[in-house]
């Protein structure tokens, strides 16, 4: 028996035919499907009412309306990929928005400092979630459901029946929130920039890849010696910070802050991630998909009235979309699994 390993090595897998390979790869991506659905929706709705896209407002709303949700969906996707969930982002958004409003009202702090404080406050609220999940070992669903009420409660206690109005907000921030640059709203630019950073982080850095690893198999992550607690903390802190930023974006866009700000938006963020192909049990999906999911959900909400669908059905359509996305996911996962098993049986 030979003990050397100099046996002829099997040929390294050939790079696929470039163009054709790229195309099939692209067609197989979940993101492509969402993008196609989104474009189809735009085309159909615009055909019914050209103003949906070809008007100043229509064009602006296309990227402005989803901007805040995109922010939250990015953070949500990161958390879900680590096999957790963050239901507290709506309350975090509300609390940081109110905090920012109070700071404008009660202190003369410069806008940029208030922004940083709001983001930091969001990160701290996220860290609390993360610490409870990582160290107390209580499922994230329970923890963040709890903090959803706690954070909202703090805000209610603090704000009472107070309401912060546009007149209390520095005009510069309001101008920024409604302004645009190169025909694209400023808030949309911010969401694009965040998305670009998040895509890079999740695709090309150790932190991002370890998020995927931890969500894919937590036991294997332990065996690999990954610092899973730290990573979970980071994911929740990022989600919290993004919710804090979303709070500021909310202030800059709408100006008024009442105690109900952000209520229910956490479910939209989870919905966007799921529709965008982020597996609810972690380990797969992308932040780009989640952002596209956010675009699809918000645009459907705007399109359905244009298409003459009664109010009553609009919620149901969104629900059907979420369920459909999950069913589709299970189906594809199952088929992939069976295919891989069958390949193995043959070899």
């Amino acid at each position: 028996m030979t003990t050397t390993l100099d046996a002829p090595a099997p040929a390294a897998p050939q790079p696929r035919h470039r163009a054709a390979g790229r195309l099939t790869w692209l067609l197989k991506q979940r993101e492509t499907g969402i993008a196609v659905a989104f474009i189809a929706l735009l085309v159909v709705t615009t055909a019914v009412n050209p103003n949906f896209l070809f008007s100043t407002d229509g064009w602006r709303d296309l990227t402005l309306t989803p901007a805040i949700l995109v922010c939250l969906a990015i953070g949500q996707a990161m958390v879900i990929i680590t096999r957790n969930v963050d239901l507290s982002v709506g309350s975090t958004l509300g609390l940081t928005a109110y905090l920012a409003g109070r700071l404008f009202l009660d202190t003369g702090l410069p806008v940029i400092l208030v922004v940083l404080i709001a983001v930091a406050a969001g990160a701290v609220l996220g860290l609390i979630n993360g610490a409870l999940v990582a160290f107390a070992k209580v499922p994230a669903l329970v923890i963040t459901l709890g903090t959803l009420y706690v954070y909202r409660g703090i805000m209610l206690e603090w704000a009472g029946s107070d309401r912060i109005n546009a007149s209390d907000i520095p005009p510069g921030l309001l101008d920024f929130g409604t302004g645009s640059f190169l025909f694209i709203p400023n808030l949309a630019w911010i969401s694009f920039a965040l998305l670009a950073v998040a895509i890079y982080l999740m695709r090309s850095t150790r932190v991002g890849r370890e998020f995927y690893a931890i969500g894919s198999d937590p036991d294997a992550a332990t065996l690999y010696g990954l610092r899973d607690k730290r990573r979970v903390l980071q994911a929740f802190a990022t989600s919290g910070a993004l919710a804090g930023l979303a709070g500021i974006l909310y202030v800059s866009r709408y100006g008024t802050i009442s105690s109900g700000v952000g209520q229910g938006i956490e479910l939209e963020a989870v919905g966007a991630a799921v529709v965008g192909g982020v597996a609810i049990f972690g380990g797969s999906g992308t932040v780009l998909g989640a952002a596209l999911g956010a675009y699809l959900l918000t645009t459907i909400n705007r399109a359905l009235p244009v298409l003459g669908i009664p109010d009553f059905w609009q919620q149901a359509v969104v629900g059907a979309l979420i369920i459909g996305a999950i069913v589709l996911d299970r189906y594809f996962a199952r088929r992939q699994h069976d295919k891989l098993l069958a390949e193995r049986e043959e070899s």
Partner: protein
Amino acid sequence: MPDTPAALELRDVAKSFGPVRALRSGSLRVEAGSIHALVGENGAGKSTLVKIVAGLYRRDAGDYLLAGEQVDFRNTADAKQAGVAVIYQEPTLFPDLSVTENIFMGRQPTNRWGRIDRAAMRTEVVELFARLGVPIEPDRPTEGLSIADQQLIEIAKALSLDAKVLIMDEPTAALSGNEVDRLMSVARTLRDQGCAVVFISHRFDEVFALCDTITVMRDGGYISTDPISAVTEDQIVQRLVGREVSDLYPKLEATVGKPLLEVKGLTRTGLFQDISLTVREGEIVGLAGLVGAGRSEVAQAIFGVDPYESGEVTLEGRQVPAGDPRRAIEMGLAFVPEDRRQHGLVLDAPISRNITLPTSGRLARTGLISTGIENRSAADWAARLEVKAATLDTLAGTLSGGNQQKVVLAKWLSTRPKVLIIDEPTRGIDVGTKSEVHRLLSTLAQQGLGILMISSELPEVLGMADRVIVLSEGHQTAELSREDATPEAVMRAATAHHSTTLNVSEAS
């Protein structure tokens, strides 16, 4: 003692889990540039020892030295950093991630800005696979890869780590002949490069063909270390067993009656193929095989927890519907799963509630269950099985492994089953309590219960079973009567590739 320190040395290492002493006194000395066999029965403490070396467990006592230096690893990353790589029998990889990512996870090459250099990773992986002579596509996800391929990924990982100590925990258990040869040649190459290799295996032909030194463990303790040329297979087997099989396994004579459970041609693609077996009154049928052979999957399919594609299950001639455990219980099947903490017990409920759970419908005459009724019904069973606990209100989670198992048994026996399927009846139970569980099973069989027992512990199967059915890679490779079921025969069938069907001696 030689002057040069050993690459890996353990002295009197101990580890307990609650009341269970998994390792009493483990000692191992492995020189650089050698392949060291570590052998012992299941439960001898090898795996615990390996996990201590890997940094997964921390030892309670004893010394752990690497190249003469005392070490104390807090986690697996520390151990890896120090050059210790472990290949487990069932590799744990990230199914969603690519082969390349799995090899480099946690230590990807990055540039100044923290960007992962994917091209460099891929190049190294292609190189590693070429060195190993394996055609695995680096970009595919690891989901769906065979265990052999997954192990090769683990080995590639160890190679890329430049491991100084490589531990292979039963790496060949699930491999075919070619794959074993390939693995052995890889191990030799690593040895020649100065690596200290620890090879754990139940297959003596491999141990004697490959290793330079051999250490025997038994019942959590160290027995002996010898150069492989100085010992014979028989001597090793003697040291391995070290006690009379009959002491631990009080098998009572039972009259085998009419067939109760009959399974014909049970198949689920990828998991098990064409499984046929019969369990008769008063008979204990052992279902043997290596981990991953599909034994638990078969049991779960019979009971209806998992689906199957074709085949038939009957109990006393009546068909047991697929995928309906409730109906299976009504018909007289009971199933004690392998992981009793997860599937068999409600840990934060009292003993009485646990025992009466499956019969609560019958107990609740008025639609309400009173603690009184529960306790009365449970007391009877708890007494018969000698559950050792202060009161029936004691929470199940606080009991020892053996007593938990008795509670699970009591729970199922209260449904008055005709056939009991029990998966790994004594896993994680200390030696003393083990024989109590065995006596219990034997008594039950004597009273006419048919028992299908899955066990990874060969002596348990041989000591308890009237008949042994062996699975290998989801195929039934042998059916042996009690007389024919020698350790060698069972092991041969368990490691057989399914195309080579062994002589099947039909039990009458």
